């Protein structure tokens, strides 16, 4: 019996940027795969190329960025596709939660409109019908009084609320693959737990595959079956969550695990980490 084909497969992905000092490689020969109903947690050094990898999957690298290798969605190559072809995939089949919610929301429009347009771009329908979807999406991410809040502008929300709005926006289309780039950094632990539950429930219902980027190793250990550790644009270690957390092989993974601050450690015995 063969294993089921992965929903999202990234092979030998390399991302480069031209800079005045020459071409820099920000992601180097990265490969991974995610199956239906599975979550891959990506952890690693700040600046190691996690966000760039997720942008490359969506075909959204900033100007100058060049991706080579292969990104397969359900066996279909995404790299090199035209903007027009990608449009039908983005949002509908691959949803994305960006890292910096304030700058990722348009300050000129209400959050209701910004969620609504995502829905209507793929499902069509009247604005009124979409409105119900919007209110429900906001409610699911625990925004109180969602019907009224939908008419507010991004700057009228708190940082964590904006983050949840980004999540609501990505989830309202129930994509096959969800790429979540640090989706809970601005959430307190109780709301974070609710949002993680929401993601798990949705995954159980729809079989969504998740690429979950985070710095919170405890969260990773709870949501991910597999973990990818990155540093400096390259993969350091890739394995099951159980293996990474209980039997880390690589030195950098151990450094990371050692550096996790502990709530029962009031003296803050912070180890200095040499680069």
């Amino acid at each position, binding site marked *: 019996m063969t294993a089921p084909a992965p929903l999202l497969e990234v092979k030998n992905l390399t991302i480069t940027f031209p800079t005045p000092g020459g071409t820099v490689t920000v992601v180097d020969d990265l490969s991974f795969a995610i199956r239906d109903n599975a979550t891959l947690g990506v952890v690693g050094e700040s600046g190691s190329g996690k966000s760039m990898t997720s942008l490359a999957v969506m075909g959204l690298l900033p100007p100058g960025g060049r991706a080579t290798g292969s990104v397969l969605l359900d066996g279909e190559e995404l790299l090199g596709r035209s903007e027009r072809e990608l449009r*039908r995939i983005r949002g509908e089949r691959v949803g994305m939660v960006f890292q910096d919610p304030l700058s990722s929301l348009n300050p000129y429009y209400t959050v209701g409109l910004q969620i609504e347009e995502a829905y209507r771009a793929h499902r069509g329908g009247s604005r009124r019908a979409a409105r119900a979807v919007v209110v429900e999406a906001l409610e699911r991410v625990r925004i109180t009084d969602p019907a009224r809040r939908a008419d507010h502008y991004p700057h009228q929300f708190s940082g964590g609320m904006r983050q949840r709005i980004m999540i609501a926006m990505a989830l309202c289309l129930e994509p096959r693959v969800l790429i979540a780039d640090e989706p809970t950094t601005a959430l307190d632990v109780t709301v974070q737990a609710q949002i993680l539950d929401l993601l798990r429930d949705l995954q159980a219902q729809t079989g969504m595959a998740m690429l979950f980027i985070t710095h919170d190793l405890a969260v990773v250990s709870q949501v991910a079956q597999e973990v990818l550790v990155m540093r400096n644009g390259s993969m350091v270690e890739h394995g099951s969550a159980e293996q990474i957390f209980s039997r880390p092989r690589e030195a950098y993974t151990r450094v990371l695990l050692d550096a996790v601050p502990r709530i029962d450690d009031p003296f803050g015995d912070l180890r200095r980490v040499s680069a």
Partner: protein
Amino acid sequence: MVGYLARRLLSALGILLLISLFTYVIFFLLSPDPAVLICGKTCTPDRIDQIRGTLGLDQPFWVQFWDFLRGFFVGRTYGDGASAVSCPAPCLGFSFQTNRSVTEMIETRLPVSATVALGAAVLWLLAGVGAGLLSAVKQGTWWDRGAMMFALGGISLPNYFVALILQYVLVVQMQILPFPSAVPFGEDPVRWFQSYLMPWLVLAFGYAAVYARLVRANVLDTLGENFLRTARAKGLSGRLILRRHALRPSLTPVVTMFGMDFAGLLGGALITETVFGLNGVGKLAADSIAKNDQPVIMGVTLLAAFFVVIGNVIVDITYTFLDPRVRIATR
């Protein structure tokens, strides 16, 4: 919102008062004695004193300024007895040159300047915003380069130069247009249009160039914003992304600029009106400066200041509707 509006208008009034004081000081302290100017060549010291008395020039500065303000708000009377001349509000005094009421002179000239400003504004908005958008969307193509060459021309060529060239080509050489002379619209609409066409084109060219560059730069900045990436990540169509997400942030600053430019033009387009011999406020200003006709200079200066200050208030209020972040803060 209402409180905000009241505050803004009050401060606008204060600024206008300051400007009038400032202008008055300049003309009071720095100009030659108007009485001598009015009196002309055949002048006696008695006559000069008489003129001074009528105009109130023998009074201390503050009294004169107060009379000027009072005249503007409630009207005033010059001289007394049989030779008294009344000047109803808003009184700006009488021209030293023609003896006509400055208010009247401005009233007859203003429609011409307004027509020039309005026509030019429509043209430059269409051309400037259009060219800016085109070159931003087609960045790096020949469209872009062409539009930016055009803009460079508009910015670097002086107004009067463009005016003269246009006049030479269209009027003298090709004889498509008659020589401009402001014909009222009711009299002959075609001639009216023909006589304003060149001033419109000349003015619009300069402004359109600046707008094209601004719009292009703004659109390119907006295209680099993170929220534009979000719009793409949602799978919106290219047209919707441009129309909804890129345009509004890019054009909002243009509103500020437009308000100020348009307000400035209502106060008279000095060079263009002079070159084309249009009897607008700008030409009036040029003439009065040439002849040192102080009341008229004072009048047109205040008019221009009025438009700019009020334009500023209108722009700020418009802004509170266009940018939600400002909107909430002012409430």
